[in-house]
Structure formats: structure tokens, C-alpha cells
């Protein structure tokens, strides 16, 4: 049996790497995506342009503004002199917010009265708006303590665990490990059976003494090896290039990756065994990958999704592996904590692989 599987494996690897096209698919897109995602996918805000509309021009408004200017997050882009100028700068997206001090701002403060500051934000990107608002609050709170020497009773002391500076790159880059291994394994597996069916070699294979189990093993190992290699490469780039710390156990990481790859390969092989042509295989993979990524928690938290949608995500292997990757990167969780992420992937792998193997000999024309 292992003898036949060996020959199948040699053949699978040769077809993967001798064909210029499949070599391209395995190597080029993941690298491009890694760089683009690593750099472009960020929720951090940086150099946010704002306009100042200061009717006060007093001591305190200047002090607040000096504070803003000192922050790397904000960048002063315009000065306004009257109300009518507010709409145009926001409309044109010249600035993200306008900070407005009323004419009696300093006077009120000096008298010990509340002196509100108005902020008008461009809410087109609601996420950015909310985060900017959060920053502004912190700036004002710090200002109150440091300049007015008013310490409010009971004051939150905030600490972030795992990602002390809350850099979204530490969140996104480990996620790319899960994303790209999924894409690579899906593309390589979704085409294998379909390509052989289209070219007639699958028939040729089915008339040899090889069993469905042997085909399954032969078709699983190559994408598994490629996924593992690709995953390790991305791991290395994440740690050494993007500087994301890896604090957990490599054993747990690789155990999770192994199960994840099996689950992804299982889904890919199932799609492939159902497809008659390579085009259908590719479309099937695309139709699986796009929703799977969106519903994985890669960019947007699963907790924010409605209940029914959350239930659908239980079928998605990427959802589980993302948790494993992110926690093994940034925290150092014991196995018991991650166990709930492991067994669902094992079930998905078992079910999809069994279905694919059954389809080898039963979806025939």
C-alpha cells in the first residue's frame, strides 16, 4: 500500500512543481498577499489630519492645542475662522475632524466652570471616527490631570494584555498565517481531482489497483507539506520581519496548524471531487474562501456578528485556527484552554475527507 502511495506522491509533487502555472500559484500570490496584507491591513490610526476652529484664542485653548500637536497621532491641517468653513473641509475629506473652542473657553475654565470642547467628526468610516474620539478623550483627560491638577475621584488605569501597545499589526499579521495557508491549500487541492478528471487521468488512476484511501493519502500529503512550509515561512516573516512576538508554544502552534491544514485540505478535496472541470473547482474554492475569510474573525470580530451568522461560523475551520494562532503568538495559553479550538477542526477534517474519498469512486459520469 505505502509503495503505491509513494508513487502517487512523487507524481503529485512533480505535477505541482513542473507545471509553470501551478508553481506560480503556490509561490507568487502568497508572497504578494503577505506583504500587502502585512503593511496595508491596519486599523491603527496615524497622522490624522484635523482643523482647528479656535474662537477663544486664550491660554487654555492654546494649551490644549499644544498638547494635540505634540501627539504623533494627529496632524494639524487647517485653521478655520468661521462656521461656514467647517462643512467644506470635512466634505472634501481634507480633515477627519474639526476641533472647536467656544469664545469663552478659557474664561470659563479660569472661573472653574465646565468649558466644553466641540469635535465634529467625519463618520464616513465609523471605526476610524470612534477610535479618534477615544484618543481625544484620553488627551483631554490627561490634560485635565497635568495642567489643571484636577484628579477626578476614581480614574481608570488601563492596561492591555498580550498586545501592550495595541498595535493592529500584531493582530493582523498572525492572522495572515491562517489566511494564506488556507488560500494556498484550497487552490492546490481544489484543482487536483478536478484537473485529473478533466484530463482523464483520474479514470486512468481508478483502473489501477489503487484504493480511495490511498488516493486520499496521496492527495493530502503534498498540500499538507506545502501548507506547512508556507505557514512556517509566514511565521518566520511575522516574527523577524514584522517583529510580532511569539510567546506561546511552537508545539501547540504546529499541532493546530496540522489539524487546520487537514480540515482545509478536506474541504478542498471535497469541492474538487464534486467538480467536473478545473474552472468549477476554482470557482468552488473561491466561493468557499471569500465567505470563510469574512466569517473567520480575521478582520472583524465574530462576537459582533448576529447569532445566526455566528452559528454558521462553527463550520469554518479558519475561525478555530485564528484563535490558536493569535493566542500562541501573543499569549502563552495552556493546551486545555485551546482544546475547544482543536476538536471541531478534527471533526471537520474527518467528515470532509471521508466524503471526498467516498466521492472519488461514486461521483462518476
Amino acid at each position, binding site marked *: 500500500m505505502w509503495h503505491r502511495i509513494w508513487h502517487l506522491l512523487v507524481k503529485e509533487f512533480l505535477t505541482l512543481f513542473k507545471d509553470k502555472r501551478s508553481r*506560480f500559484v503556490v509561490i507568487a500570490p502568497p508572497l504578494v498577499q503577505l506583504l500587502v496584507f502585512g503593511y496595508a491591513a491596519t486599523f491603527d490610526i*496615524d497622522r490624522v489630519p484635523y482643523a482647528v476652529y479656535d474662537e477663544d484664542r486664550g491660554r487654555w485653548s492654546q494649551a490644549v492645542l499644544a498638547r494635540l500637536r505634540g501627539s504623533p497621532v494627529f496632524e494639524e491641517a487647517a485653521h478655520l475662522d468661521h462656521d461656514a468653513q467647517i462643512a467644506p473641509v470635512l466634505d472634501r475629506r481634507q480633515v477627519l475632524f474639526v476641533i472647536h473652542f467656544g469664545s469663552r473657553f478659557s474664561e470659563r475654565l479660569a472661573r472653574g466652570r465646565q468649558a*466644553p470642547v466641540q469635535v*465634529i467628526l467625519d463618520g464616513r468610516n465609523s471605526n476610524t471616527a470612534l477610535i479618534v474620539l477615544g484618543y481625544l478623550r484620553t488627551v483631554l483627560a490627561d490634560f485635565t490631570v497635568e495642567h489643571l491638577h484636577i484628579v477626578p475621584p476614581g480614574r481608570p488605569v*488601563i492596561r492591555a494584555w498580550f*498586545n501592550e501597545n495595541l498595535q493592529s499589526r500584531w493582530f493582523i499579521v498572525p492572522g495572515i498565517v491562517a489566511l494564506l495557508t488556507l488560500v494556498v491549500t484550497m487552490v492546490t487541492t481544489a484543482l487536483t481531482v478536478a484537473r485529473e478528471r478533466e484530463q482523464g487521468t483520474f479514470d486512468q488512476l481508478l483502473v489501477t489497483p489503487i484504493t480511495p484511501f490511498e488516493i486520499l493519502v496521496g492527495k493530502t500529503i503534498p498540500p499538507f507539506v506545502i501548507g506547512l512550509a508556507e505557514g512556517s515561512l509566514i511565521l518566520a516573516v511575522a516574527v523577524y520581519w514584522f517583529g510580532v512576538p511569539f510567546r506561546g508554544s511552537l508545539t501547540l502552534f504546529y499541532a493546530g496548524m496540522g489539524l487546520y491544514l487537514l480540515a482545509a485540505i478536506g474541504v478542498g478535496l471535497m469541492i474538487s471531487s464534486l467538480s467536473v472541470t478545473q474552472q468549477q473547482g476554482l*470557482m468552488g474554492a473561491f466561493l468557499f474562501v471569500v465567505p470563510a475569510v469574512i466569517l473567520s474573525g480575521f478582520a472583524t470580530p465574530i462576537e459582533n456578528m*448576529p447569532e445566526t451568522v455566528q452559528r454558521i461560523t462553527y463550520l469554518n475551520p479558519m475561525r478555530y485556527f485564528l484563535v490558536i494562532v493569535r493566542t500562541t503568538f501573543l499569549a502563552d495559553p495552556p493546551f486545555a484552554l485551546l482544546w475547544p479550538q482543536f476538536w471541531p477542526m478534527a471533526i471537520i477534517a474527518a467528515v470532509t475527507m471521508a466524503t471526498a474519498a467516498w466521492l472519488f469512486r461514486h461521483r462518476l459520469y
Partner: protein
Amino acid sequence: MNRRITALVRKEFIQVIRDPSSIAIAFVLPVILLLLFGYGVSLDAKRVPLALVAERPDPAAQSFLSGFYRSPYFVPVPVERMADAERLLEAGAVKGIVHLRADFGRRLLGGGEAPIQLIVDGIDANTARLVQGYVTDVWLTWLQRRADAERLPAAIPIPLESRIWYNAEVESRNFLVPGLIAVIMTLIGALLTALVIAREWERGTMEALMSTPVTMGEILLGKIVTYFLLGTGGLLLSVAMALWLFDVPLRGSFWLLWLGASLFLLTALGMGLLISTVTRNQFVAGQIAIIVTFLPAFILSGFIFEIRSMPTAIQWLTHLVPARYFVAFLQTVFLAGDIGAVIWPNLAALAVMAALFLGRTWQISRKRLE
């Protein structure tokens, strides 16, 4: 239009309708995406599970913590001991812990500083930051109420009064759904077009077409007209779902929206045609279309990720992505209105790109098999 072009367009439509994978790209995937982004996906942290640990639940602690029960953003999880709360945080069951020490109430009454410890799960940095903001909100509200009730001097000398324009409800759906139109039109305009033309080469129908009196311009025009109409269908579907299903406002004019979408469609079609003309192979065309059109429309267009936050080199790169101009246009027309200063430069960029891609395709398309 002459009869040959009409015939080609008719043929193309029949093929789209009868080919399951075309239907998948042109109709099924857009609807799935719209539903996912309309209902499923949201960047706004709502109902965040938050552990509340009050080492001594005296009235002071109770009054502070009650704010979390009133907030729409949190699902409070009362926990007695800090160690348990930490375990919950490690397991990802809560996204943060609010911890009040046993002396919180005493120190508060004593007028001293009573620290409130907040620990957030920083793995999802974005959610963590939003949680910080919401907790600060709860705290400020509590301070204000306390000051009002006890007629204390202003606890917060500089309150922040914020007004959020264009998207007062601060719903991420309101900017995700319009941006999604760019992704959907990229799917139809670039990916589907690239695939169907490559398919003609693969199946040998292109050779048969070329030996008839049809000119190359007519073949190209036949494709453009078909997928332009199909893309317009996708636009109408997306706009209808956005307006009536997801209640996204359309503050600008529909006709302007249509004009922008048409220009973008032409650009996408240009890219699709160019890719398939160069590759003549469905597999390669599909791969390239995904990498150079679909992914950039998702990642580099400002659809989800703010372009201003990207490194300068990547920001520069986004100028080559047509979807970037279209997303900026869409978010403005939907949420802000007909603002010429945003609209015209973006439309001009789209027009230039459409001309470039279509022109190049026209230039390299010869009625030859070589």
C-alpha cells in the same frame, strides 16, 4: 448597434444564464457578500463581554458598575475573584476586566484617588481600543451623574461634545456596504470578464469567431456591452439592498452614482479584457484577476482599511488601484452627498484609467491567433 454586436451580446447573455459558474460570480457571490456585510460583519464592538470584579460590592462600587449594565456596548459578567476573571480573559470568554479593589469605596469617600483597573484583551487591538473608549465613556457618565447628584464642582472641567457627521449612528455597515459595491463590480467587470474571454480561447470558439467577418472591435464591444449591462444590474441590486434592506442613506444623487459606477465598470472591464487577452487561459486569468483586481479592491481601496494609516509606499501604490477612487466616491455620494471637490477628481481618475486599460486592450487585440 449593428446586428453582429447584438447577436454577440445575445449569445453572451444566454451563456451567462446557462453557465452555473457565471451565475455564481455575477449573482450568488454579490448577494452573499452584501448579506454578510449588511448583516454579518461589523467593526463596531457591541455587546462586548466584560468581566466586572468588585472585591467589596459596596454602594460606591455598585453605582459605578451599574453604568456597564446600562451601556449598550457591554454584556457584563460579574466575577467574584480576580483570578477567575483573568482565566476568563485568557480563554477569550471576556474581552476585558474592570477591577475595583476592596478599598475603592473607602478611598472614594475619603476624597482620594480611587483607581479603577481596566485590563483589555489586546489581541484584537481594534476591539481593545473601542472597549477602552466605551469604558471611558461609562466612567465619564458616572462622574457627571455623581457630580450632578451631589452638587459637587465640575468633575470634568473639559467635557468633549462630539458630533459625528454623515454617519450619526456610527454604524460600520454604512460605510462597508457602499464600499462593497466596488468589490462586487470588480467581480463582475474584471474577474468574470477575464474568465469568459479566456474560455473562448480555450474552447476554440474564438478561432471560429475570428474566421467570420466580425471585426475584433465588434468582438470586444460585444463583451463590453454585455458585462456593462450585467455590472449595471449588479449596481442596481446592490443599491436596492443597501437602501431598502440595510437602510444605508443615499445623500447624493442616483444619477451621479450611476455615472461613477459606469466609469468604474469600464475600468474593471478594461482590466478583465486585458488580462484575458494576454493570458488566453482561464486558470491563469482567474488567478491574475484575483490578485490584481479583487484583492486590491478589498484591501487597498479604503473599503475596510483606512488608506491614510498605511505606510507611505503602500499609500502610493493605492493610487494604481482603480477601486480606491471608486470607494472614495461611493462613501461620499452615499453618506455625504454630491460634493464636487471629492467627486470630480475621483471621476477624472477613473476616466483616465478606463481609457488606459481599454485603449491598451484595443491596441494589442489583433484578429490573429499568434
